[in-house]
């Protein structure tokens, strides 16, 4: 649909949007171009794009030679995808129960679950660490997956239950009349209809998990369970920082999350504008 406003206003709006895009992309751009430059060039002209003289892949070679970088990658991917799966599954199930069934304490349970949005999970780090030690889960990816699932659930339940309330009651009742079980109604009727909301939740859940340094550092710092964000830290020393390697590692770390984002983004836009355009 084309806006019918004056061209002046739409130019202004686009100027603001483009300016914002440039500001948001600038740090990413600087990281990526500098990852291809020699150390001297990074410090001499940090904003220059790489030229044949300054072109240097030493950062990438260091990253690939030092440490088990593919292992870190795989750890990050495992943790993110598994947490995402559990957040979406349990979040959607809880949201369905809260929005569909009338039971005593429905409101209270909903509020309790939403509290997690406001209270940062890191406040409980000490208790979480004690629990993980007691359960023998320190230095396992399971520990991270459990924590991230808990971290992602409140927002997921909150957003999804809002969307599920909007799914027509008649449709669910028609399913019941046709002999679909409650599980079939959930998986086959409701989930496909809230897919845009699921994508929104997926993106909001995925990015903080991928970028997190705190919990990998505390719960799973061993060589076997390091995530990519933690793995990149080996190049940041107390006295010397290997900037080529750090920049190369960060550039590489952007790729998978970018791919996941592209997969969800088409759905995401529909999720954000759902209800606005009907």
């Amino acid at each position, binding site marked *: 649909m084309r806006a019918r406003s004056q061209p002046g206003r739409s130019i202004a709006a686009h100027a603001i949007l483009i300016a914002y895009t440039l500001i948001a992309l600038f740090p990413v751009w600087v990281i990526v171009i500098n990852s291809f430059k020699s150390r001297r060039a990074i410090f001499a002209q940090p904003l220059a794009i790489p030229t044949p003289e300054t072109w240097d892949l030493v950062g990438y070679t260091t990253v690939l030679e030092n440490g088990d970088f593919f292992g870190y990658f795989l750890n990050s991917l495992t943790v993110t995808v598994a947490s995402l799966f559990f957040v979406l599954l349990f979040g959607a199930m809880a949201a369905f129960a809260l929005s569909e069934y009338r039971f005593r304490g429905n409101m209270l349970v909903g509020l309790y679950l939403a509290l997690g949005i406001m209270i940062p999970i890191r406040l409980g780090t000490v208790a979480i660490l004690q629990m993980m030690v007691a359960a023998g889960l320190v230095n396992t990816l399971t520990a991270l997956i459990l924590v991230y699932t808990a971290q992602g659930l409140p927002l997921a339940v909150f957003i999804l239950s809002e969307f599920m309330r909007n799914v*027509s009651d*008649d*449709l669910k*009742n*028609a*399913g*019941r*009349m*046709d*002999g*679909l079980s409650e599980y079939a109604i959930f998986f086959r*009727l409701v989930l*496909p*209809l809230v897919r845009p909301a699921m994508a929104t939740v997926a993106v909001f859940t995925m990015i903080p998990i991928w970028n997190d340094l705190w919990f990998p550092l505390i719960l799973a710092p061993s060589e076997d369970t390091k995530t990519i964000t933690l793995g990149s830290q080996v190049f940041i020393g107390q006295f010397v920082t290997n900037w080529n390697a750090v920049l190369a590692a960060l550039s590489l770390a952007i790729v998978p999350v970018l791919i996941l984002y592209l997969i969800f983004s088409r759905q995401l836009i529909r999720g954000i504008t759902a209800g606005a355009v009907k």
Partner: protein
Amino acid sequence: MGSLELRNVTKVFGKTEIIKGIDLSVKDGEFVVFVGPSGCGKSTLLRMIAGLEDVTSGAVVLDGQDVTAVAPAKRGIAMVFQSYALYPHLTVRDNMGLALRQAGAPRSEIAQAVGRASAMLALDPYLERRPAELSGGQRQRVAIGRAIVRTPSLFLFDEPLSNLDAALRVATRIEIARLHRELGATMIYVTHDQVEAMTLADRIVVLRAGQVEQVGRPMELYNDPANTFVAGFIGSPRMNFLKGAALGESADTVGVRPEHLAISRQGNAIPGTVSHVEKLGGETLVYVRSEVHGLLTVRLFGEQDFSVDEAVQLTPEPPRSLRFDAAGRRLR
């Protein structure tokens, strides 16, 4: 095979009593319409029959068997919803066949049943389409088709015509009446539109605030209403209620239908002034404001000329007047 009996069923939400003890029996093959203003509990009652709402107390009996605790799909009931409620990701064919597939019917039987229903409703060209590619009328036909495919003993309709435009509503109404004749199945139909109720029903159940006000054939309710609520609800335009005392009657209220009120320019019956005239071609509705009785409606045959602010006299036809007491009950 499709008789239904409600035995003193009630429904309570929290502290609010939505359905206050309803007894009703519907014979096999009957077309019964639940009618009432919004919020009277007619849709809730229908959902209770379907099994989509729990019954707080009382029993729902289908073909002599108590099904109060039976799951909706096991009751042998099909339901058509106001919002069509088609499965958006399935084609028309799959929408219609889903219930049989869930019940584990063989493929050939499903195809046959879908074919029969689609022929009945002229849906053949649309079988491979998704609901989003259909018009409102077509969607409602698919929803009806989905009900027919299951060959249920009891059909439930929850305001199925409310989302259609006026022309389509008449056409679909006739279609539903034809289906009822052809299938011979029991049908229960909920509406707030008394025209639908009058034209479709074998029997009408008038509900108000969770209670049955009156049950009867359309003409029984029209000619012989039990109280002022039914008298006012059935019939369009609405019945006029005159103050008994002003007419020298012993009754509190006298009800006169708009067509039983004579209008003239002379005489000394009930004086009033014309406040509005609606000419519909076949009939003319004259709204007359009376000092004593308020706004009254007169229905005249054909085209009649009355102008606004004209002084007129109204005369009720005595044998057609209905008398009610102060509580609204009919005096016979």
